[in-house]
């Protein structure tokens, strides 16, 4: 009996252009780019409505009352702050239809860019309202703060604000850099608790909601639905898939210096809707590892009953994977990522991988149809780092493509405007897919842009390690 890894060693001949010829696997559903536009429009509509609700909640005469201006600023920052917090949660709620269009790295980037806003707005909200009420009551700030926490639900909202500010502080780049990734990530999940504590006081006291049952209903439904999405897609669906597929490690195989392939066996893998280039979060259920989930690309399309991921040992966790025992159960979340053949806008593509980025390239390549004539550029510092090289070569040959292996120190095997032009003369007629470490991806994307490839034809996925 041959080893399970043999199922991936010699890739099957590709299907033709007609995708219906591949009945042995459920293909990932096609992304609908219009959905991203609808979501953005809806997000804007919500922001505008929220602002308008605040403005119309009280008459303009209120502004000239003592503390009126600060109180209004407090309402506005509170309403927009919570609305942005809602958007923040939705961005990472893993709605599959949105993930397929925007890609998780895009969504997380947006989540990160937006993050300072809700926290500062909500801190400003507390400050403005205390000032406004103190001015109205002609008392001191501290005295007024003492009065305010006696309002219904305001004390727990204050605790929530404390949690948010703490998370905001540990997320400052200088501090976050010093924290272990998992520690930071686990602490930052407290944000869900903070939001659950913060929302009630808004519904009970907010001038936009008091006496406005419809607004209150809409706002409550919005938060409940968001909570439902998070529970369903971040917890429910992963549990369902984990239980359905019953994945176990069957083989751990060395692919090169520090690089291992983990081959898993499972049930009903034909029902896992995955495209080449996508990744999953893997949770190896052993004593030391069950609590951490790590994102790794599939390094090949599933070959039921097998799946394969290929990992380079760069951190404590990834290095420990060589010690995985066959039989270890594995929980999965995903697949995620928009780095798929669906993003292709033009007839031809060039695929560029730096280092271990070859894993995503390998499975993406497998998804490209026969005769697609891809150009593949593999970049590695040493010949032995060029993992999965043989498989990639075979896949390129089957698709009548071209492969260039750029091996050696950066100075020797340089990838610049001149060499890229020379290696891919028809660059401007191709989509550019880039995968690899962050720095590498950024450099190639900038290079492609400089050479006139439009943004919508550049697709990338960076591994943040």
């Amino acid at each position, binding site marked *: 009996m041959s080893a399970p890894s043999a199922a991936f060693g010699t890739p099957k001949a590709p299907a033709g252009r007609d995708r219906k010829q591949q009945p042995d696997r459920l293909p990932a559903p096609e992304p609908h780019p219009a959905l*991203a536009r609808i979501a*953005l429009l*809806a*997000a*804007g509509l919500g922001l*505008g409505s929220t602002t308008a609700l605040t403005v119309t909640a009280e008459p303009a005469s209120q502004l000239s009352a003592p503390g009126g201006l600060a109180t209004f600023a407090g309402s506005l920052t509170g309403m927009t702050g919570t609305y942005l917090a809602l958007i923040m949660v939705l961005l990472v709620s893993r709605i599959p239809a949105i993930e397929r269009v925007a890609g998780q790295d895009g969504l997380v980037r947006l989540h990160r860019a937006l993050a300072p806003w809700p926290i500062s707005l909500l801190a400003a909200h507390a400050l403005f309202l205390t000032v406004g*009420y103190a001015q109205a*009551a002609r008392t001191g700030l501290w005295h007024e703060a003492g009065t305010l926490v006696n309002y219904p639900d305001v004390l727990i909202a204050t605790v929530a604000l404390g949690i948010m500010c703490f998370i905001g502080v540990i997320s400052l780049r200088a501090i976050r850099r010093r924290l272990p990734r998992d520690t930071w990530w686990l602490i930052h999940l407290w944000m869900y608790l903070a939001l659950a504590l913060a929302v009630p006081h808004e519904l009970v006291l907010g*001038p936009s909601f008091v*006496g406005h049952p419809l607004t209150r209903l809409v706002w409550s439904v919005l938060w409940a639905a968001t909570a439902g999405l998070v529970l369903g897609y971040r917890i429910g669906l992963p549990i369902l898939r984990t239980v359905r597929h019953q994945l176990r490690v069957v083989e751990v195989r060395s692919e090169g210096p520090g690089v291992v392939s983990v081959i898993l066996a499972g049930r009903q893998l034909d029902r896992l809707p995955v495209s080449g280039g996508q990744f999953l979060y893997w949770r190896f259920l052993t004593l030391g590892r069950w609590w951490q989930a790590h994102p790794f690309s599939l390094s090949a399309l599933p070959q039921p009953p097998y799946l394969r991921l290929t990992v380079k040992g760069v951190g404590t966790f990834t290095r420990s994977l060589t010690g995985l025992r066959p039989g270890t159960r594995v929980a999965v979340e995903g697949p995620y990522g928009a780095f798929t053949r669906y993003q292709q806008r033009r007839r031809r593509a060039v695929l560029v991988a730096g280092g271990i980025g070859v894993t995503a390239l390998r499975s993406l390549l497998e998804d490209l149809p026969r005769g697609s004539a891809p150009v593949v550029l593999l970049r590695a510092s040493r010949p032995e780092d060029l993992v999965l090289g043989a498989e990639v070569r075979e896949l390129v040959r089957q698709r009548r493509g071209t492969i260039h292996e750029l091996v050696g120190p950066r100075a020797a095997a340089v990838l610049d405007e001149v060499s890229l032009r020379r290696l891919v003369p028809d660059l401007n007629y191709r989509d550019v897919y880039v995968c690899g470490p962050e720095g590498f991806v950024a450099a190639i994307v900038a290079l492609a842009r400089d050479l006139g490839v439009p943004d919508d034809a550049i697709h990338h996925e960076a591994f943040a390690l």
Partner: protein
Amino acid sequence: MRAGAWLVLGGAVAGFLGVLGLHRPASSSALAGGTVTQGPGTQGPGTQGPGTQGPGTQGPGTQGPGPTASPGRTTTAAGPPGTVTGPVVNYGYGELATRVAISGSRITGVSVPVIRVAEQFSQELADRAIPVLRHEVLAAQSAHIQAVSGATYTSEAYAQSVQAALDKAHFK
């Protein structure tokens, strides 16, 4: 990316104007803090009938002596002689009307014949604020009073209603 920003911006403008447009017609009938509604027709079952209470101590729940104001349950527009009733003022978390007793050129009492609130907390706030506000009006002999800490909305509504009552009586 740029197109996305425009979509969000366009949506925001549309949402803002949309809600503003929807709000207009509703504002005349629905609660809009500070809107002054005239007349006694707004009195409902929640109204505090101050029957036994005197004008001086009209905070709901507080008992006090004093014979001045004891309006009937069904009318708030006309109080006893020597009193003038202000309009029902809606302040978002509830609504209230004041009745001012005037003797010669002095304000001798303020009562609250109408008060309805949205929830228990606002009721407590009003219970606390109204005696203070009454005291302030009597001391100032006008509606130019300071808001009670933590009960800004109640205070403003109170002051507004008292001012309107004083205007009605051509006080000073």
